[in-house]
């Protein structure tokens, strides 16, 4: 059975990820079950997708603008962001924007070329689920959440940057 990492645990993956064909044709929708569709498929088959049974997720490509789905979030159980390569940094910004600007509260899943070594960064950008690329050991990858015991910057999981926690202890800031 395919597994993912979710909320820092290995979990079963019950979702079917639908990717367009090489000619960009939209794949057929299965009659039942939970599916994650591309932004193109969501846009083209919105009504059919909302009418069918099963849960619905959407996945964004590295070039997709998350603002496009900002008004549709209530229709989704899950949003995935695809990494053609883990060094394509756009997905990290997409994750933060979904969480911090558009208020996405549900599962945010990293898919594609996801390796253990970027889990720490991704989780700080708001990802709470990871479908590792083939060959990666999900159980062994759980240690990645502890790669660093602290971080300087503001992040989705901890909006207060280290400097505020250090000097203010969470109290009010003075900027003058």
């Amino acid at each position, binding site marked *: 059975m395919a597994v993912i990492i979710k909320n820092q645990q290995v979990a079963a993956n019950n979702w079917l990820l639908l990717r367009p064909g090489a000619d960009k044709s939209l794949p057929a929708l299965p009659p039942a079950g939970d599916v994650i569709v591309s932004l193109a498929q969501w846009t083209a088959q919105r009504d059919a997708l909302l009418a069918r049974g099963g849960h619905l997720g959407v996945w964004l490509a590295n070039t997709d603008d998350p603002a496009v789905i900002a008004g549709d979030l209530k229709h989704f159980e899950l949003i995935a962001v695809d990494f053609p390569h883990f060094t394509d*940094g756009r997905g990290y910004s997409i994750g933060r924007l979904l969480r911090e600007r558009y208020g996405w509260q549900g599962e945010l899943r990293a898919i594609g070329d996801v390796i253990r070594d970027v889990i720490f960064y991704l989780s*700080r950008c708001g990802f709470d689920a990871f479908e590792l690329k083939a060959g990666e050991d999900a159980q062994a990858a759980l240690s990645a959440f502890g790669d660093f015991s602290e*971080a300087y910057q503001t992040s989705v999981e901890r909006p207060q940057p280290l400097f505020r926690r250090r000097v203010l202890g969470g109290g009010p800031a003075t900027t003058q």
Partner: protein
Amino acid sequence: MYIYDEIDQRIVDDRVNQFRDQTRRFLAGSLSEDDFRPLRLQNGLYIQRFAPMLRVAIPYGLLGSHQLRALAYIARKWDRGYGHFSTRQNIQFNWPKLEEVPDILAKLATVQMHAIQTSGNCIRNTTTDHFAGVAADEVIDPLVWCEIIRQWSAFHPEFAFLPRKFKIAVSGAEKDRAAIQVHDIGLQATQDEQGNICFRVLVGGGLGRTPIIGTEICAFLPWQHLLSYLDAVLRVYNRYGRRDNKYKARIKILVKELKPEVFRAEVEAEWAHLKDGPATLVAQEVERITKRFTRPAYQKLDALASGYVLALGRDKAFANWARRNVHSHKVAGYAAVTLSLKKTGVPPGDVTADQMDAIADLADRYSFGELRVSHEQNLILADVRQADLFELWQQARELGLATPNIGLLTNIIACPGGDFCSLANAKSIPVAEAIAQRFDDLDYLHDIGELDLNISGCMNSCGHHHVGHIGVLGVDKHGAEFYQISIGGAQGNDAALGKVLGPSVSQSEVPDVIEKLIDLYLERRDSAEERFVDVVRRIGIEPFKEHVYGGHHKKPAGRGEQLAVA
């Protein structure tokens, strides 16, 4: 020096463990070479021509004597007894073994050093004025802001995988010694009319294949907003910078293609969301960082030490050195001193482990145990009592570190070039050496006066040839190494990009060309005060071209023989 607190130390220690595990998995075969590559690059580890090359960060060029001794230890134990200071205030080791790199990092961590983000497509080591904190013309001390930026940029979760590398430089003085106009982001710390610290933000400068001078996108950024503004710039770049062609992936291309005013509007729109958010800096943090910097306990001294003045009159060699290598200081009775790593016969920027130990001793004895690395690849003792200068000079001379050539032609800035670097088209070091040998007469050198000569082994421009008064660029012509000469470049406030003189020449001809350029300069200058670059600006490059190549259509001639044109 900024002294780590327990958390700073923990983060660096965590990195050592992370990299040790990555190296172990790579060697065991469970982490592929393709996946390991970007990960090791983020730790400054290249696989080079002969061996891995490890680039160690020297944040904003500030180094303690104990840290330099640790670098000497590393050079002896894991390398071949020397290191190379780069043009970005870092140090590189050219011969470590891959499996031993985690141990090197662990050693570095014991002296609060690391190799974090010294390579790869991420935010690199922030650089600054090598006279930060001591310069007489300083408005704002940039060091505190550099450390704030270091912490913000270290393992930034969103910007670890940018389209391309990203370099930030900060200057706080009237004279720009940090080359802020040729960085991805250049920050000039200044004051607004009310005396509040703020930053002038330049973006999209850079050298490399497409040299561009940066554009101002914000004239007065209040310090509170520094990090949220940087987040906004980086987010726009991360999302929209080109990733299809690595030669067009730097932020300068995005700024140019969008047009600076459109880029600026994008940043402003992004910043509108981030401004006043949790990344907004607070006064307590600036104070905390400021206090974690050790500062020299200066003595109250006369503005001019009498012994120093007497020695200047007594000893011509000392006076020559003082004229070139001693710099004014904001505190009375003190001076900053450049130890030249540009002795003829030594590759620019190279230092042996023994020299490192000896320099650390000098720093302890004469400069509060602290030193700086300059982007001109020299070392600086920033806080020396004038009364100690003569003694320091004598000791530096014995160590081969007192070549009085700072600002002169033989203070050559050069990348490691084809002898070491796998990217290079051509060698740099033998060219630098041949030029230095041609101009080894000190009186002649001083007569020529201020001249920046920069050599890059390829278009990546690590030797910053575009901003040299004379720039030398290694090019590949049908498999042979040739050199393209440009003139008229400049760094600093009047930064300019050099213009190519003409067809490239072979290695042996480079010194001839330089000599011809100098001959014409000496003939045409209106006084000894008019520098080489001033003459180029005044009369243009045509007369130089003609003098070197002997007319537009003729083949160049030099030293009685025909120069091969490539």
